[in-house]
Structures are given as structure tokens and as C-alpha cells.
């Protein structure tokens, strides 16, 4: 028996606004001693503003407490499949925050921003080398925006060929990330889903059958979301081109193949990369990221604005390609993220990049081997950067879902893997250890998952109630969606929402 402790605070119930005490403040604003200009007409002004009033120390404690209720890569292993949660080198942050870079104004003349621009130029060249696609725009803010850029470039090329009116379909594998079909739809295309064959690659027969003069492009993730190489993709590329369509690479999984094989060499026309994955920039709790788009000579005129070019006078400038699809950002993209990615590229060099992909693949296969037999493995073959197990057996035999397994892993001190994705694997557990985990961490992760598989048989209720050691227990997501409370002021959202919902 342990003595009853003091009752735990319901931390989440007390937001900043609930901690507010009128008259407190965290900073003082300098007084204005000059001559005063009267403010605009009061009809243009606000008369009140509700914000918390907290002292500086209280605010720092509040957000420090919040940070302690979070789990980052620096907290421990974070094997979130498809997201490449590798260690984020601290020097990259240091470099991006140097005042010379941080204070650069986006409207500055090129001559006044050569340090930033030359660095971006070299990043551009480096990414062209790594992807084998010679032309690059660094503008997209994340992977999904890179996808939109790539698809709109294809639109522009088809328009130029006079085939836009007829080529209205984009083919997307059923294993694709949700952003791929969403992007295709946003760009105005109809999506046709391609089934995955038994070996985990695209089904060649279906592709051949679907490829016709209505197809604008095929979006393929390489390596795919099963962690597998797309078998024969270089031949599929030929078929796609013969049919007059373009081949798009979702390069979110570049980490597995960096320095070993290149999208351009395989016949891809355009690719986006996720620098917040393969190039180690911090994920920030959901961004900022960067999703550069790389392409062939043929598509280069359509790249989003700006592209970084060195001009004849030796000055590096931001230019608009001649038939650019236009801008994606008010300014030039997530430059702070791009500087970090550049630092990473320079810290590694080619040998380093090859060591990264090699170790990422070795780690995933090590985990695959350690867990083999304990969970179902629908595609049972060597993998690249990640491995997708299935919790089907646990579900069938013990009524334990992948959801429960993931929650129980939290009690073992790990961030759970990606779950229920890709959609083609039932009860999917998509695990990507990344190269920055030592073998001991992978062994510990495997031990934990094996212990959980045993527990599923012996004590399923412990899994059903997990996590037991997190700052908070399982949350009621159904009520959250049904009666949404989305801000401090408890707007009477719920009734209105149920009235409005379709």
C-alpha cells in the first residue's frame, strides 16, 4: 500500500486565460515621448481584447510544464513510420539563428542577401545531385505543397502540349500517403487508385490496363510506404512515357536510398523531397518543414517561383522560370529550414549520406528480424527504411487492436509507430527506426513489442486501458468531434455544429 498522495492537478483544465490575474504582465512596452499623432477614427479601432494577463515567470512555467507533457526525438526513440524521426543536429539550429541569416529581410536586394542566396544555390545543386533531377525550386513549404507544385507543373506541360483537356486522370497506388490523392484532386484531377500486387509493388497489369490518353500522371512513392522497393519502376517509367503521361516521385522516403540510386536516372520526371524527414530538420510538433520540388529539363520552365540562379555577373538571384506555375509562398519558402538542411548536407557529404541510407536500412531490417514471428508480416521480405507489421493476429486471437498495442508502447517509454497506415495493411504498425538509433535502442523497442504481444495473450485488459504512465489517459475523441470545444470561450458550438453537419 502506498500512502495516498496529493490529488493530481487537472492541468489541462487550466489554460492561460484561467491563470490570468488582471494587472499582471510579462513584458513592458517602452513609453512614447515624442509628439503624438491621433489614432484613426474609432470606428476603425477595437474597443476590447481578451488575452491572459500573466507575469513572465508564470508564463515560462506554464509553457515549460506543457513541454514536459510532450515527447520529442530528444526524449527517446520515435519510430513513427513514414516520418523519419531522426536525431536533429543542434548545430543546424545554431547556424540558422545567426543574426546575419535570421535578420535578412525577404525584400532585400539580392546584393544584400548573398550569404543566404549562395547557401540556397548550393543546397539546390546538392539536391539536384542527390535526386539526379537537375532543376530544383526550394519554394514549397512542406511535402504536400511540393506535390501540388509538381502536379501543377505537369498541368502546365500538358497545356502546352494541348492535351490538358483530355488528360484528366492521375493514377495513385492504394498504398499512397493521403496527401497524394488530395493533391491530385486539389489540382483538378480525378484519382484512379492502383492496387498493390502480392510482392508489395505496383501491379504491372493494372497499370498497363489503366494507361491511356486520359492519364496525366502516375504518382509513385519510392521506396513505397511498405518500406519496399518499387520493383521494375524503371520499366514502368518507360510505359508511362510511351503513354504520354508523366511519372511523379513522392520522395518522402528518400532517406532509404540517398547516395545509392536517383529518381532522375530511373526515369522520374518530377519529385518532391521532405527535408524535415531525410535532411534532419526539426519537425516542430507539425512543421515548419520544406518540400523542394526537383525536375527534368523538360519540366524546368514550369518550376514554381522563385528558383535560385547564379547570374553572369556572379550575383545569385531569385528568378521566375519563364513559364512558371507561379508562387507558392508570399516570399521564398521556409528558408530557415533550408539553411538547416544545407548544414546537414555539408556535415555528411556523399559518404555520410550513403552511411545514413545504409544504416537506416540495416536498422529497419534488424528490427524486422527481431520481431519476426511475434507479429504478422504481410510482406515478408527484406525492407528498406521501414517495416510494416500487422496486429491482425492479436486482434483476432485476443481482441487487442493495434491501437492498444501503440498505447501500451507508451508505458515502455517509446513513441508509438505510425498506425493504420498504409491503408492496405490491416491493423498496420509502420515502424521506421532511422539510422540515428543505436542497436541497443532497437533491441529495447523489439523487446517491448514482444512483451506487449505476450501481454496481449495473458492480460489483454492492461492493453485496453493503456497508457497507464502517460501525463494523461486515453481521451474521448468521439465527444471531442461531436461537441467541439475549439477555443477558450466556450462558444455554443456544439448545438450549432450538429445543426450544420451534413
Amino acid at each position, binding site marked *: 500500500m502506498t500512502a495516498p498522495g496529493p490529488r*493530481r492537478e487537472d492541468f489541462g483544465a487550466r489554460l492561460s486565460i484561467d491563470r490570468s490575474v488582471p494587472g499582471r*504582465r*510579462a513584458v513592458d*512596452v517602452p513609453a512614447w515621448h515624442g509628439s503624438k*499623432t491621433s489614432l484613426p477614427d474609432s470606428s*476603425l*479601432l*477595437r474597443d476590447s481584447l*481578451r*488575452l*491572459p494577463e500573466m507575469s513572465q515567470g508564470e*508564463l515560462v512555467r506554464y509553457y515549460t510544464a506543457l513541454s514536459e507533457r*510532450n*515527447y*520529442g526525438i530528444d*526524449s527517446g526513440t520515435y519510430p513513427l513510420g513514414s516520418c523519419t524521426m531522426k536525431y536533429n543536429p543542434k548545430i543546424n539550429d545554431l547556424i540558422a539563428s545567426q543574426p546575419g*541569416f535570421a535578420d535578412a529581410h*525577404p*525584400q*532585400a536586394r539580392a546584393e544584400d542577401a*548573398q550569404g*543566404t542566396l549562395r547557401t540556397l544555390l548550393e543546397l539546390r545543386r546538392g539536391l539536384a545531385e542527390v535526386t539526379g533531377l537537375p532543376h530544383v525550386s526550394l519554394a514549397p*513549404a*512542406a511535402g504536400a505543397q511540393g506535390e501540388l507544385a509538381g*502536379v501543377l507543373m505537369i498541368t502546365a506541360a500538358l497545356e502546352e502540349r494541348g492535351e490538358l483537356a483530355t488528360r484528366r486522370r492521375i493514377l495513385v497506388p492504394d498504398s499512397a500517403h*493521403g*496527401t497524394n490523392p*488530395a*493533391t491530385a484532386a486539389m489540382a*483538378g484531377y480525378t484519382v484512379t487508385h492502383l492496387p498493390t500486387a502480392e510482392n508489395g509493388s505496383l501491379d504491372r497489369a493494372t497499370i498497363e490496363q489503366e494507361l491511356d490518353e486520359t492519364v496525366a500522371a502516375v504518382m509513385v512513392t519510392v521506396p513505397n510506404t511498405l518500406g519496399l522497393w518499387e520493383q521494375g519502376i524503371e520499366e514502368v517509367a518507360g510505359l508511362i512515357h510511351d503513354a504520354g503521361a508523366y511519372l511523379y516521385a513522392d520522395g518522402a522516403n528518400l532517406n532509404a*536510398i540517398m*547516395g545509392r540510386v536517383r529518381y532522375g*536516372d530511373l526515369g522520374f520526371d518530377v519529385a518532391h523531397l521532405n527535408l524535415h524527414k531525410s535532411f534532419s530538420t*526539426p*519537425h516542430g510538433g507539425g512543421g*515548419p518543414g520544406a518540400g523542394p520540388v526537383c525536375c527534368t529539363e523538360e519540366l524546368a520552365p514550369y518550376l514554381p*517561383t522563385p528558383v535560385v540562379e547564379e547570374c553572369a555577373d556572379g550575383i545569385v538571384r531569385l528568378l521566375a522560370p519563364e513559364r512558371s506555375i507561379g*508562387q507558392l*509562398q*508570399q*516570399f521564398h519558402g*521556409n*528558408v530557415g*529550414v533550408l539553411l538547416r538542411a544545407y548544414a546537414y548536407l555539408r*556535415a555528411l557529404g556523399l559518404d*555520410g549520406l550513403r552511411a545514413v541510407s545504409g*544504416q537506416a*536500412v540495416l536498422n529497419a531490417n534488424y528490427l524486422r*528480424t527481431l520481431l519476426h514471428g511475434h507479429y504478422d508480416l504481410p510482406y515478408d521480405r527484406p525492407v528498406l527504411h521501414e517495416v510494416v507489421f500487422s496486429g491482425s493476429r492479436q486482434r483476432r486471437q485476443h481482441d487487442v487492436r493495434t491501437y492498444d498495442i501503440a*498505447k501500451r508502447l507508451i508505458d515502455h517509454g517509446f*513513441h508509438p509507430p505510425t498506425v493504420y497506415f498504409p491503408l492496405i495493411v490491416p491493423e498496420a504498425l509502420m515502424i521506421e527506426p532511422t539510422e*540515428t538509433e*543505436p*542497436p541497443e535502442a532497437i533491441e529495447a523497442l523489439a523487446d517491448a513489442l514482444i512483451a506487449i504481444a505476450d501481454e496481449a495473450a495473458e492480460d489483454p485488459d492492461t492493453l485496453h486501458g493503456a497508457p497507464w504512465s502517460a501525463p494523461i489517459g486515453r*481521451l474521448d475523441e468521439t465527444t*471531442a*468531434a461531436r461537441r*467541439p470545444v*475549439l477555443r477558450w470561450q466556450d*462558444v455554443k458550438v456544439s448545438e450549432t455544429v450538429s445543426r450544420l453537419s451534413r
Partner: protein
Amino acid sequence: MASPHPYIPATEADRARMLERIGVDDLDALFADLPAAFRDPAIDLPPALTEPELIALLADRAAENAAPSRPNFLGAGAYRRSVPSIVSHLVSRSEFATAYTPYQPEISQGTLQSGFEFQSVVCELTGMDVANVGLYDVASATAEACLMASRTTKRQAAALLELIHPGTAGVVNTYARGAGLRVDVVASPDELSDEHACLVVQQPDFLGTIVDLEPLANAAHDVGALLVAVADPFALGILKAPGDAGADIVTGEGRDLAGAPAFGGPSLGLFAAGLPYLRQIPGRIVGRTKELHAPDDGEPRTGYVLTLQAREQFIRRERATSNVSTAQALIALGFTIAVQALGPQGLRQSAELCYQRAHDAARRISALPAYDVPERGPWFQEFLVRGPMSAPELSAALSEREITGGLDVSNRLEPEARDALLFCVTEATPDAHIEALIEALAEIGDEV
């Protein structure tokens, strides 16, 4: 036997042990699926650098930019702000910075609860009912607003009021093309018709003027269109909340309150809307809820989750409201902390200080013999300056004196912008920089 790199822990011995356990002879065997003809191509990259070498290289690079101490009067979408010191300290905490999208709420309450704080702050500032946790930047947020307006009104055209930032207009055009939306730039709301899904207006406008949103909202509503206000959240410290003036959607740029301009990014797109549009909002939304089960020692506790996800790409796929996934969460955190540190008084005082200092600087410039500050109505922090020479010449003359003048807007159509530079002075522009500018302008004037 060493590990290959400080970022990669496995040593040669570790690798040998792992390969043996896997049951393959070497690493190459694991890459056997890759087509041999394309394996290990020649790749031309500069050699790896150690940490001290990297720091030295990039310190030199940073020094090739204009010195941060150089007086700079550029605004036009990016503004130097007095960011409270606690912001960079707190956003650097790696529990925030090295986490990802909060898919596992039990160990992501930090990101989620601060997301809820962010949504609340954005709603208070904009006067709207609901906000998401942020999009890429103001321009893409505005483009998403146009797409959302088109979805809800089932109309296929968006109207942009002139004097929207050219970058924002550019991005709206890019997104509109994919969605098959026509974009009309209109000089006045009289040009609106029942084909328009929305009227987009920037507050303050591109030349710095404060806009009366109410008549524009009425004009939009009269033809059944939505009003999208693209508002500077800092100016909203004193300006009327667009929601109170009738806006249906409000977007904005949050980067400057969260930190340095960083050559424009990372940025932060604010996105808020009226309740009727809740199910059409793009991006992630955090909701408040309770634990499913009470802990042993009491009542179910309060927590936060990503909610209303049936709008999103990972569930809806091609029928999602947007393709956005990774956005700008860490910048949103910085924005939230900055606004809360300033608090209700501080934000107003800071915005007022910005207003007073900008107007004072403008007055001093217009008092110089050869200069004119043409006004277009009430304004906030940006003003036009016409000098004794053409705008590019004035800009170059300032540059020679190590001063970055305002943005050259002389080729715009507005008569006040002819021959003018658009200067920006904020609460964070150092006094010494303003003195240097006045002196330089006077000198340039004398020389002509």
C-alpha cells in the same frame, strides 16, 4: 571499428553483429532490389565538414548578407517586431521542437494544448468563431480561403481587391489554377457579381493604408459572396477585429511576432472563420475533451486531441478539404507565447508605439525640403516617400550610405505611389536608424 559519423551510432562491430542476426553477408544484400544498372551513380557533393569547419563556413556566409545592424526600412509583408525574449527560449525546448504532429495525444499534450491556446488567441484577435492550428503562410492561407469560399458558395471565381500584396495575389492565382477558379482583380466592390465566391481584401493594404472593412463586407454579402480579410495580427492590437466588421474568413501572417524575418520563412499562415464554415476549414484543428476513464484518484481529467479529422487528407484522401499535412506548428507556438506575453495591454501599447513612431518618422521626412509623404488615408506602419529624384535613384543613394530604404513601388498604378518608395518604421526600428535615415535623406536632398 568506429561509427561512420557522429550522427550515426552503429560501429563496424555493431553492424557485423546486426548483419549476422539478419542472416545476410553484407549491407549490399539488403539493397538487392535496387536495379543494378542504376546503382551507386557518380554524385558530386563537396566533402563532409566537421562541426568547427561547418560553423566557420556558415559564419562567413552569414556575414555576406547585409549586416543586421544596417538601418533597414523594408516592410511590405515582413516587419521587424519586438519579440519578447521568452519566445525563443521556450520554442527551443526540444520537447516541442523535435516532436511531430500529435498523433498520440497522451504524450503530445504540450503541442495540443498550445495548439488550443493558439486557436483561442487567433479567434480573439480576428473576432472569428473558429481557427485551425495554422497553415504555411499568409498567402497560401488566403488561397485556401478562396478555395473554401468556392466550396461553400459553389461559385467559380474569386475577387481580389487591388492593393493586396503581390505575393499573396500570386499564390491565390497558383492555387486557383488547379481548382479551376477564375481570379479577378477589382478596383472597387462595385465590380462584384453573383459569380464571385469571395472578395479578398488586405488590412492594412499593400501601401499601408487602414481599410474600412464594413462597407466591403456589406458589398460582398449583397451579392452572396464571403468577405476574406487578410489582416496583420499585430495591427489588430488596435484595429477593429475583422470579424466585428463582417468578415467571414480571416487570414494573416504570424511569423513576425514569433521571431526574426529569416528571409521570409519559416512563416505562419493564420486561418480563422465563422462557425458555419467549420466543416470546410483546411488543416488541423485541436479540440478539448476529457479522459475516457477516471484515474483512481478522481474525476476524468481534461485533455486535447486533433479533431474533426474527417476533413483531412489522411482520412478523406481525394475528398479532403485540403492536402495540407505538415504546417508550421513551432512558429504557431512562438506566436501564441508572444501574444500572451504582451497581453491585452501590451499588444495594444506595442501597436500604438509602432503607429506613433512610424507617424513621427513620416512627419520628419515630409518636413525635409525635397521630400513628400503622400497620404492615402489613415495608415499604420508603412508610408510612401517621394524624393528629389526617381525612386530607384533614391534607393541607390541610400544604399551608398549603408541604408536600406523602402521598397520601390514606383511602377504601381496608384497615383500616390508614382516615384515613391514604401518605407516601414515599427516599434522595433532603432532610434539611431531613424536618425541616420533623416540625416541621409537631408544630405541627398542638399546634393541635388
